[in-house]
């Protein structure tokens, strides 16, 4: 699938024939700076976090080896389970919603129209602005007294009383999902749009000759051919949703009562409080979940298989 592998495989070996021993060394030298950066600032810190999770490491207390103590404490920590549950629930609700909306957007954006470029740019804007900004913006939108959400609810007569969006656990959850959908739907749409562009127009022409209706064309042509890209978008978004931090931190601060604290925020709060051992242990759990899924992603996406 795609430009990368398609263009790489026929040419790679031909150039390789000309490689001398010195060029091999130079080739690795070209990779070296990137490898060093990734190793020093990502791999080493992750290993450090794993090691740190086995220590008791609280500011102003002597640092000592603690074995599995942090993990054992985690098992009986209701806050941890609440964060784990919220993170999973948030992912399970927001990702399918974003995929659905993203597909809808992609189908709308794929249709030729004179304003297509402008339309695409408009849709991209929510993705491009910082999550801290969109978090603040939605905090205002959900303002109990004069926010846009309650104004619209009142105007359309949906509720008699204003809704306490951020004051109840359910309201805060819905608010987060909606704000996240606003921000990440464009990303999904753009990826699916690329997938749509890869579907041969001949198939649609053939379907039209066969007098296949709009719905039939969608379920028989578009959906099956788009499914590899849908899977990629699904896994990409899942991993991103699992590590959600910015939006939660700004919009709800993890509240009310810790009900919307994600694992990233829970770990961060411990780092901020100076408990690096426990914070690291929480981060390790999140890391393992995300890592498991990323292995799945690489497998399912069949990345680089044609390269080998």
């Amino acid at each position, binding site marked *: *699938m795609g*430009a990368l592998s398609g*263009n790489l495989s026929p040419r790679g070996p031909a*150039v390789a024939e000309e*490689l001398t021993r010195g060029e091999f060394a*130079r080739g690795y030298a*070209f*990779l070296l700076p*990137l*490898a060093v950066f*990734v190793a020093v*600032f*990502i*791999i080493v*810190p*992750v290993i*450090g976090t794993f090691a*740190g999770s086995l220590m008791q490491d609280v500011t102003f207390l002597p640092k000592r080896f603690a074995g599995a103590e942090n993990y054992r404490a985690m098992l009986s920590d209701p806050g941890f389970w609440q964060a784990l549950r919220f993170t999973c629930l948030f992912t399970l609700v927001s990702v399918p919603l974003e995929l659905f909306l993203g597909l809808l*957007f992609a189908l709308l954006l794929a249709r030729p129209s004179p304003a297509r470029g402008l*339309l*695409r*740019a*408009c*849709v*991209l*804007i*929510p993705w*491009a602005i*910082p999550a*801290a*900004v969109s978090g603040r*913006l939605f905090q*205002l939108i959900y*303002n109990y*007294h004069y926010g*846009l959400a309650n*104004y619209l609810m009142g105007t359309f007569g949906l509720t008699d009383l204003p809704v306490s969006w951020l004051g109840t656990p359910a309201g805060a959850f819905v608010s987060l999902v909606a704000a996240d959908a*606003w921000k990440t739907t*464009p990303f999904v749409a*753009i990826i699916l749009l*690329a997938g749509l562009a890869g579907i041969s127009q001949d198939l649609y022409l053939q379907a039209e000759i066969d007098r296949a209706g*709009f719905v039939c064309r969608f379920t028989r042509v578009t959906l099956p051919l788009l499914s590899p*890209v849908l899977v*990629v978008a699904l896994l990409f978004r899942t991993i991103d949703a699992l*590590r959600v*931090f*910015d939006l939660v931190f700004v919009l709800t601060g993890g509240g009310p009562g810790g009900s919307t604290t994600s694992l*990233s925020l829970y*770990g*961060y709060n411990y780092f901020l409080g100076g408990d*690096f051992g426990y914070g690291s242990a929480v*981060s390790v759990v*999140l*890391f393992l979940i*995300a890592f498991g*899924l*990323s*292995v799945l992603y*690489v497998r399912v996406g069949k*990345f680089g298989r044609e390269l080998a």
Partner: protein
Amino acid sequence: MSEERQVRTLHLAGALGMTIFSLGPILYMALTAASRRPDFLSHAAGFEFTVAHFDSVLRTASLHFPEYLRNSIVVSGASAALCVSIASPAAYAVTRLSLPGRVFFLLSVLAVSMFPPVSMVGYLFQVMGKLGWINTYQALVLPYTAWILPLSLWILTSYFAQVPADLDRAALIDGCSRLTILRKVIFPVAAPGIFSTALLAFIIAFNELLFAMMLSTDHAARTVPVGIALFEGLHGEIPWGVVMAASILTTIPVILLTLVFQRRIIQGLTRGAVKG
């Protein structure tokens, strides 16, 4: 034919809905920033235009907004430049020299890009604390660069793979070194790809919050997203007009970039994610 018309009407309505969904909240942000009162929707006085909020964002020394913006631009610009200059030799090696293990290399880098930032930030905070780097530019630029390198490598690899290898061969015969080929042959041909990569790297670094919150402490290095995230009013109530004015000022450069370079951003995003 009538179905075709139905579809067209649906498409028009959909496009309209999509635009309102995307831009409505931005418009609300702009209106609140320019309104004397934040409750202009429900209050009898309604909307009254003012530039006072923008004025106070730019002139209130204690808010440090101009410093935050400068820090953000320096940090993101440096990260984008580093990303491109480190990822392009690597992308060249991956596409041009069939080194053993290059597929494994690409895949490992892809897996690394999915690590949750929180699993690095605690350790980085402790190490940078020992080095005395907390609240410096390098404390942000170096992790950002490492963090965005995987995506940069994937985007650049897909662009470089499209440059015909015959160009390399011709240059090799002329006695050019690989590094010269990268600089003089690949860079000009793949310039759009390099630009897309730098643009995406800039946007990602510009928007980052978690590292910036842990690794910077005040206006010497703090970036705009942190400033906006930690904005607190003097007496508890958030000064919405000022916060939204700061948000608009932060968003305008990003919106302009998006409007002007929409095609580049979309190309970069899809190459990094799908290789469609």
